């Protein structure tokens, strides 16, 4: 039996329908006339013969139908009929269908979109290949548990480290500062040099041109003079010019060719530009070695393997390692601390996502069940005219699937739209160029769940009512008096929905109050109204320390003259984050040998400009700044950590690694600064300086005129929005000094706080969860409302009779409410219990905040009131019905 002939007839039945019908009819016609002719030959009258022949073949002969059935298309035909019937039914009940489908699609769409966003922003942060297997080179000093000590390796150590069995591959990164000579302006570039295998390790393609490649060489190779720009550098220095490839690039008195630009998410080492390791100009590079673990190897196993090796290295380079340490290689992803905080709470996010999806499914199920219950009569009628139970169940199945698939289809579209919405609405909410892709597994999961839920709850009534006592149901329909029983599943579903909604409301409340807490976090300084402008000039314009001092003073004076400016200071970093650390020792205290503290160079007006209060001693004055005296103030954290018992005032701090004459042509040291030492004259209050979620670092603020660079960073406090001033300020500087290079920083200090990862993550969570909760709230209320309305509508006749018999409208109202109030209260109570049970887990979301209790209370009140309103309105409408109208509704 050939497959071909079957396909031919199936195809024919679909595509040559008309021709087929004609042929079948003709064949039938021939048969009838041939038979009639035979009958006539047997002596029958022609008319009678014709009639008889027709009757024999069967008066109901429908050739096409018979044909389709014969070739096995009956199931298909019936299913198509069911779908058509289902669609017609849905079209007749547009409101019901719309809400059911919308509930499903919102559940699916929002869940998929939100999960995809969260995945992209919180889980899949790094664009580098296998970043989940990549580990940072870190050793851990048991005495300082919170400190990460990054270690660096020389070439032979690097080779040995690379050969560790736990590692699949290792690449090295070194960095150096290079003077850039462009547009007559001097700038220190942060160059990151990468070993030749780095491109193969990270596998991130370039945005433009090419990235670094293996042929660009390793240390010791003849270097090709090529440079690849970092995205940020390309944007600020080349204004994102796409024609930059192939241009010359002058740096460190050498000429390079720009061969590529890396994408925004590639920020390895935070470099301005990338060069091959072959460009390394110092005798011996010290490399930060990033390792990729072999699959299945844990960071712990790898750490144990390299630990003895690192202790050997520590003997060779004792200054590079803490005295006591053990290796603790740290997965790249753990380095992002806010993320790990979020991950800790990830089950909550799953809970929120899952709840919304469940609420959507429950909504759809509710409607299907409510509708199914009211279709008892239809089922009975169909059974009476001979439909089998299977046939009825199958038809319901098709209807449910139709709803489920329509809902899923819209849900998929919604997922795509919604996933892009946050990026469009608030681009700065996201870390870097977050690439949001729809997460396929979660999409399939949501659709699957929706379909299963639709089937389960859609079929429940069909199974129950497809074998009803026909006569009873048919009679009951004449006077549909009392509401049908079997509403328990409906009530349970409504209760579950309300409970889940309450949980979502409380979760989002916790996230929101966590965010509010973060917003109100005392920073220790006042970022509002402060802008930052960097001013540079060609180093030859002012060569000596005195000339440079005069320049800084002139710039500051010029900016202070701008109307609306209330304070101007120099600084060398921007809170809430800061520069690196500097080893120091307290002179005369042998126990304090080489300890690390943050060292930052600021002008004396720094503390007034940022509103950091002075606690002890004094800040150096303008006259002392004018002499470039080596004076410093420290913060409270410094006192707490290094000098809790005796006053730090008038003590001398030495920076053993600071070389005062290292780069005389770039940095000029004041005549007053002879030794790498500063004298502490005051103590200021703590100001956040290591990110929002980390404690304040001990800091030494050094008088910045002690050493001057050809250029300064100015912080300007204004009386208004500081960004309105940046143009005026830049203009004022140019008027004073046309040769200067003025770069207003793109963000005000307040915006810098808002761009902090901790801030953005918490805000993102708050926004996402608020959206979740809002959708859940709306969905469950709509579900509740429509179910009550549906059931009430079915009872219109009953209410009419009751009213006609003298019931008061209030009694009708109470009748409906009484049926639903226990459900609303029960659901809310369940939600409350669940929320309280989960509260210990919320606490991470709202550290130090006591608002969640109030929020719980508000959420409960809101939900109960809204739910009662949703029940009350249909009940109210039912109680207003005219008895005569109600009785005619049959």
């Amino acid at each position, binding site marked *: 039996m050939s497959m071909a*002939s079957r396909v031919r*007839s199936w195809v024919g039945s679909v595509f040559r329908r008309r021709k087929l019908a004609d042929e079948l009819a003709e064949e039938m016609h*021939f048969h009838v006339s041939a038979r009639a002719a035979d009958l006539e030959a047997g002596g029958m009258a022609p008319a009678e013969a014709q009639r008889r022949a027709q009757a024999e073949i069967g008066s109901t*002969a429908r050739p096409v139908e018979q044909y389709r059935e*014969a070739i096995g298309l009956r199931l298909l035909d019936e299913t198509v009929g069911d779908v058509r019937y289902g669609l017609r039914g849905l079209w007749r009940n547009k409101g019901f269908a719309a809400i059911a489908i919308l509930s499903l699609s919102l559940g699916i769409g929002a869940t998929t979109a939100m999960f995809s966003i969260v995945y992209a922003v919180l889980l899949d942060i790094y664009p580098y290949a296998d970043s989940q297997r990549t580990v940072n080179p870190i050793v851990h000093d048991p005495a300082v548990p919170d400190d990460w000590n990054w270690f660096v390796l020389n070439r032979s150590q690097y080779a040995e480290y690379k050969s560790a069995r736990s590692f699949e591959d290792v690449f090295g990164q070194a960095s150096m500062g290079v003077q850039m000579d462009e547009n007559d302006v001097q700038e220190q570039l942060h160059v990151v040099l990468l070993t030749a295998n780095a491109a193969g390790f990270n596998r991130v393609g370039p945005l433009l041109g090419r990235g670094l490649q293996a042929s660009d060489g390793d240390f010791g190779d003849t270097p090709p003079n090529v440079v690849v720009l970092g995205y940020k550098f390309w944007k600020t220095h080349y204004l994102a010019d796409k024609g930059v490839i192939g241009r010359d690039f002058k740096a460190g008195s050498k000429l390079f060719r720009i061969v590529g630009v890396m994408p925004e998410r590639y920020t390895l080492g935070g470099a301005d530009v990338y060069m091959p390791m072959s460009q390394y100009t110092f005798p011996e590079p010290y490399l930060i070695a990033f390792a990729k673990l072999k699959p299945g190897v844990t960071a712990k196993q790898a750490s144990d393997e390299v630990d003895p090796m690192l202790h050997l290295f520590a003997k060779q380079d004792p200054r590079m390692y803490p005295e006591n340490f053990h290796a603790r290689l740290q997965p790249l992803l753990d380095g992002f601390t806010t993320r790990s905080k979020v991950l800790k709470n990830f089950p909550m996010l799953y809970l929120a996502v899952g709840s919304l999806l469940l609420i959507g499914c429950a909504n759809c199920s509710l409607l299907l069940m409510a509708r199914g219950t009211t279709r008892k009569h239809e089922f009975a009628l169909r059974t009476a005219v001979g439909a089998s139970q299977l046939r009825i169940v199958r038809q319901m199945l098709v209807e449910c699937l139709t709803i489920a698939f329509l809902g899923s289809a819209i849900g998929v579209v919604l997922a795509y739209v919604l996933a892009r919405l946050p990026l469009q609405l608030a681009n700065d909410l996201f870390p870097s160029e977050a690439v949001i892709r729809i997460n396929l597994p979660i999409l399939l999961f949501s659709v699957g769940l929706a379909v299963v839920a639709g089937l389960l709850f859609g079929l429940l009534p069909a199974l129950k009512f497809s074998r009803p006592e026909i006569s009873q149901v048919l009679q009951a329909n004449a006077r549909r008096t009392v509401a049908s029983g079997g509403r328990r599943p409906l009530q349970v579903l409504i209760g579950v929905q309300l409970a889940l909604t309450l949980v979502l409301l409380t979760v989002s409340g916790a996230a929101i109050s966590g965010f509010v807490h973060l917003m109100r976090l005392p920073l220790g300084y006042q970022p509002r109204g402060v802008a930052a402008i960097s001013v540079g000039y060609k180093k030859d314009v002012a060569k000596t320390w005195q000339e440079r001092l005069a320049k800084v003073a002139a710039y500051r004076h010029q900016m202070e003259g701008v109307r609306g400016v209330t304070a101007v200071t120099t600084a060398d970093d921007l809170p809430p984050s800061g520069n690196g650390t500097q080893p120091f020792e307290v002179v005369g205290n042998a126990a304090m040998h080489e300890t690390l503290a943050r060292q930052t160079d600021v002008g004396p007006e720094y503390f007034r400009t940022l509103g950091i209060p002075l606690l002890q001693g004094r800040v150096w004055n303008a006259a002392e700044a004018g002499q470039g005296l080596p004076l410093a103030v420290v913060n409270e954290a410094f006192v707490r950590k290094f000098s809790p018992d005796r006053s730090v005032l008038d003590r001398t701090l030495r920076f053993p690694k600071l070389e005062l004459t290292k780069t005389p042509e770039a940095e000029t040291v004041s005549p007053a600064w002879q030794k790498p030492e500063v004298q502490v004259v005051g103590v200021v209050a703590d100001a956040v300086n290591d990110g929002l979620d980390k404690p304040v670092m001990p800091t030494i603020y050094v008088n910045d005129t002690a050493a001057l660079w050809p250029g300064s960073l100015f912080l300007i406090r204004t009386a208004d929005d500081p960004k309105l001033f940046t143009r005026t300020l830049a203009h004022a500087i140019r008027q004073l000094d046309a040769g200067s290079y003025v770069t207003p920083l793109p963000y005000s200090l307040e915006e810098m706080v808002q761009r902090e990862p901790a801030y953005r993550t918490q805000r993102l969570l708050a926004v996402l969860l608020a959206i979740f909760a809002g959708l859940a709230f709306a969905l469950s209320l709509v579900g509740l409302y429509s179910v009550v309305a549906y059931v009430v509508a079915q009872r219109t006749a009953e209410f009419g009779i009751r009213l006609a018999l003298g019931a008061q409208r209030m009694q009708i109202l109470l009748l409906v409410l009484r049926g639903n109030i226990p459900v609303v209260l029960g659901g809310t109570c369940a939600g409350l219990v669940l929320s309280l049970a989960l509260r210990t887990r919320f606490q991470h979301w709202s550290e130090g905040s006591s608002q969640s209790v109030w929020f719980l209370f508000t959420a409960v009140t809101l939900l109960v009131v809204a739910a009662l309103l949703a029940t009350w309105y249909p009940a109210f409408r039912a109680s207003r019905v005219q008895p005569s109208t109600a009785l005619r509704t049959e």
Partner: protein
Amino acid sequence: MGKDVELLQGTLNLLILKAISLGPLHGYAVLLRIQQLSGDRMEIQQGTLYPALYRLEHLGLIKGQWGESDNNRRAKFYTLSAAGRRQLTQEKRRWEAMAEVMGIILATEKAPNGEAL
């Protein structure tokens, strides 16, 4: 018309294949041929004939072609395909085996001592 033999379930296909194997026939002629071959002892329900023909054609066992009937009318003539011929042989063999077994079983008579032979 005598109707003393009822059509056994599942035998219609075999009968149609056999009837057609003797030469191309249109639907009505298939009916007549089976009747004639059975010596008018079997009658096919006209309503069941066509679905069976459609099905056999769908399976590729017979092939329908439009042609002229004796009285010069357009009619669809069915012929046996190669697959149909194979099917007929097989079915025939199966039927014969079945008939033989049935014959043996039904011919069994009760032995005097009460046990089957």
